[in-house]
């Protein structure tokens, strides 16, 4: 991998984000909402509205507003919230932190469960354990988050009364409490991805186990363990990296839903309440942050892929 390639790839990321920013700004311009009315309320006088518009720069042409906003974003200034007048950056950074904890836990749990499941299913292809894994995967794939979330809440919080239903406790303040609050949301987010990724691992590994080089490895007299772990698994997991990176988009979408259900003040919940309140700077910043996360993860996945498979030469 050459430095020129890295630069090229980073430029692509920047370009993608620029397009996203245009779209986001364009869409918020089209929203049937007047920020001044939102802030001052329906009963405000026309003079007061006019004065506020001038102060917020809403009377300027759209391209000027866009340039102003983008200039701020590049410097890390996302503007101020229309609801409470606080800087958007700070509020969202805090919310993003909570969301990332949830996302990281979900991702880790998903990988710890999905990869072994997929490997077991591939190695025992056609046997009962494979069928069980496949059946569970189908169930998992076909259940949307709000259904699994509701079921989990019903069982663990209501019927068995084992875990808290909603809310968020910071891990640094109360670790046990934080973990207890994280369990159900994490389960909900990872479940659907477990299903997806384990199926992917299974099918890739089944293909790899049928290749000539695996046969050659077996006929060299290597142990089953070495053939599976050293020869097959790396090749079988390679495409999974790409799939997981693409699933991050799904994960981010899932987090928005799950945060709302479990009342976690993360970036998803922040975004939903901003949409309800027509708080344009928060909406714009939130979407930009999610898009940037997605781009960054896919960029890292490309790097990981190139590191693990030497045939890939990015130039």
């Amino acid at each position, binding site marked *: 991998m050459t430095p*020129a390639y890295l630069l*090229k790839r980073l*430029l692509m990321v920047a370009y993608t984000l620029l397009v996203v920013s245009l779209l986001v700004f364009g869409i918020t311009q089209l929203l049937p909402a007047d920020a001044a009315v939102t802030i001052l309320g329906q009963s405000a006088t026309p003079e007061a509205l006019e004065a506020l518009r001038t102060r917020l720069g809403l009377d300027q042409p759209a391209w000027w507003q866009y340039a102003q906003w983008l200039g701020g974003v590049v410097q890390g200034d996302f503007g101020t919230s229309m609801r409470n007048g606080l800087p958007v950056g700070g509020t969202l950074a805090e919310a993003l932190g909570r969301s990332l904890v949830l996302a990281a836990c979900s991702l880790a749990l998903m990988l710890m469960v999905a990869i072994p499941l997929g490997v077991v299913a591939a190695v025992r292809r056609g046997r009962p354990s494979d069928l069980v894994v496949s059946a569970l995967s189908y169930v998992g794939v076909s259940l949307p988050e709000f259904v699994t979330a509701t079921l989990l809440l019903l069982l663990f919080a209501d019927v068995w009364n084992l875990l808290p239903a909603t809310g968020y406790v910071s891990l640094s303040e109360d670790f046990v409490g934080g973990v207890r609050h994280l369990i159900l949301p994490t389960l909900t987010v990872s479940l659907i991805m477990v299903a997806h990724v384990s199926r992917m691992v299974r099918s890739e590994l089944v293909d790899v186990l049928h*290749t*000539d*080089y*695996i*046969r*050659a*490895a*077996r*006929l*060299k*007299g*290597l*142990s089953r363990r*070495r053939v599976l772990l*050293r*020869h097959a698994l*790396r*090749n079988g997991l*390679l495409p999974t990296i790409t799939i997981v990176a693409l699933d991050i988009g799904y994960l981010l979408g899932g987090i928005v839903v799950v945060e709302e259900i479990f009342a976690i003040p993360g970036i998803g919940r922040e975004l939903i309440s901003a949409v309800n309140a027509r708080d344009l700077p928060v909406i714009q910043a939130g979407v930009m942050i999610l898009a940037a996360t997605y781009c960054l993860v896919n960029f890292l996945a490309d790097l990981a892929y190139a590191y*693990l*498979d*030497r*045939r890939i030469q990015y130039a």
Partner: protein
Amino acid sequence: MTGPVLEIERYTLDYQTGRSTLRVLDDISLDISAGEVVGLVGESGSGKSSLAWAIMRHLAGNARERGGQLRLDGEDLRGLSSSRLQALRGSRLAMIFQDPSAALNPTLSIGEQVAEVLVRHQGLSLREAWARGVALLGGVELKSPEAMMRRYPHELSGGEKQRVLISTAFACRPRCLIFDEPTTALDVISAAQILALFTRLREETGVSALYISHDLALVSRVADRVAILERGRLVESAPAATIFSAPAHEYTRRLVSAVPDPARRLIDQPPASATALLEIHKLGVSYGRPGFVDRLFGRASETTQALRELTMTLSPAEVVGVVGESGSGKSSLAKALVGLTPFAGEIRFEGRVLSNAAGMNRAYRRQVQMVFQHPDASLNPRQRIGEQLARPLRLYGLAPGESEKHAVARWLEEVRLPAEFASRYPHELSGGQKQRVAIARAFAARPALVICDEITAALDVSVQATVIELLLELRKRHGTAYLFITHDLNLVRQIAHRIAVMYRGDLVEMIDAATLDARGASHPYTRALLEAVPRPLRGHPAPSSLQGTP
């Protein structure tokens, strides 16, 4: 050790498919003595690979062993526990595969794949095994073995990869080696070098080997003894020196006569006229174009020149062979001629000048037809044979007073297929039959030139012989010219008037096939190529050595 190293005694194997069973090996008995190399020759479906898998104890799930014995140094292979088997594989019994690119793990370094055998079977530490690995790679004549150990399979050529696999197979001094078509995926010159290497290693180590191949000419050069397998039955086993000169069994005789022999020319009719049908002037083909970002940074494009300034002519009814290894530009030539790829330079056909694919009009496209290597890929699997033949007929006009159905039947008959094949689908036909359909489809347009791109490469030698016979017959009847692209020098020397030798995008020499033996080749590459091709071993017994050393 007295007695044979490998004994196969009355071995019988079935494959279970649904409720029916298919006998793949029927009562096979074959011994290999110490230091002996036995060639096993058969066409596809003869069961030769199944025998290899049976010996390696790596049978498919639906294989059913019906009886017989497999013994290595007197030890019964069939009764081995899986741990004993793992200890045996790769140490006393090793195998070398057809496609070296597929047999190496793409994500592990060469060094690891060589060293792991030594760690496993000789209990060496990784460091010791690595050092031994360097020596092993040096032993198979790989340059800078230390650096080679750290490289990955995609950084090696096919010949180098096969050397790595051979070094791995020889690593633990095996008693017996099984080769499954080890040179089929390599170009002629690398193949000859691999065979020379094997000859040297067997002299040094005294290993026994079972050498499986479809190529009788090659096996007669490598092996001491040749066993012929026909549909699971061993029909003949004879010294390599006499298999060509005195084949005993009727099937062997058929096989021997189907092997292309450059000394036996199948074409005698000289080209009909002196005016050129096709003139190619400074034809060039390059692949790859600069991407958006490269252009943004003004970087030079990384294009590959697949064909450089090729100039040649073709007379009506002339057969010009094109030979060269993969990457020599022979397929690019074919693609440019039918307008499948952009080209530079000029093509003049019947006096009309073409400087790009857009200039190829309907008449040109009718006159120049192509037959591809894999009929499976070039025939539409969801269309009946009749529909596929009717298309060129509809496009380029039927003969007056002939119905479409009649014309389809006539063309099937021309390629010696029954007329009722018109209502069949490609998958119902054998490989040779499919290729006949592809040939019929090309001829249905009544072309003046047919480009054949490795059309017999995927076929068995006996099927190849009948397809070649058909092509020559069609030429005699229709006066068609051929551009016959192949890697098989023996074959093309039988049927071509002139042979274009290509090397890395250049036409290095145009040789006259009829006088090649007398006059010899002038270009060193052509001479190397001619030397590397294993010619059938006819006449008196001779030591089985190869001349094609690098």
